């Protein structure tokens, strides 16, 4: 049971970091892809 509390706490805190990294990575890759496609034309 204490192990379960530890796992839940870690996943609750890691969700903040993982969702912000996801937004950052999606925005960066999308705009880099747009810039590359503009460079082709």
């Amino acid at each position: 049971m204490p192990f379960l509390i530890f796992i839940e706490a870690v996943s609750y805190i890691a969700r903040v970091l993982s969702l912000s990294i996801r937004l950052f990575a999606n925005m960066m890759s999308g705009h880099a892809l747009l810039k590359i496609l503009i460079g082709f034309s």
Partner: protein
Amino acid sequence: MTNAMHLTGAKNLLTIFSAPLDQFEVMSVYSAGETILFNNLSLVLMLNLVIMVAFLNMYNLNLTNNYDFVLRNIYQLVQSVVRANLYIRKQQYFAVLFYLFLTLFVANLVGLLPYSFTVTSSFIVTLFISLLHFIGVNMIGASRHG
């Protein structure tokens, strides 16, 4: 002024288009001393805030221009998402979610402009947004149910 970044001058147009990661470069616009630093990230953040406030102030009940139509559609979009996912009693936090949606919407729309800067593609901004809501949600939850 040892580690302050300086504006490197006007770049060649060809190198801008051939280097796709140069658009995420944070460079200093104005710096006075070591405490006041104003880079293009803070410039575009202020631009986003001005655009958002101006867009929200265009609200008019009589539907006299097209901005009201766009704003009403965005409002109804966020409202449908909130109604589908939250209880009736928790729908008082609609304003926070509407503000969050409008912030990301304006930031990504401004970032699509050429020679502009995408605010949400820097990690400090996304980390700030997520930590702000995490701490707020935990404080409200602890004060209601603690």
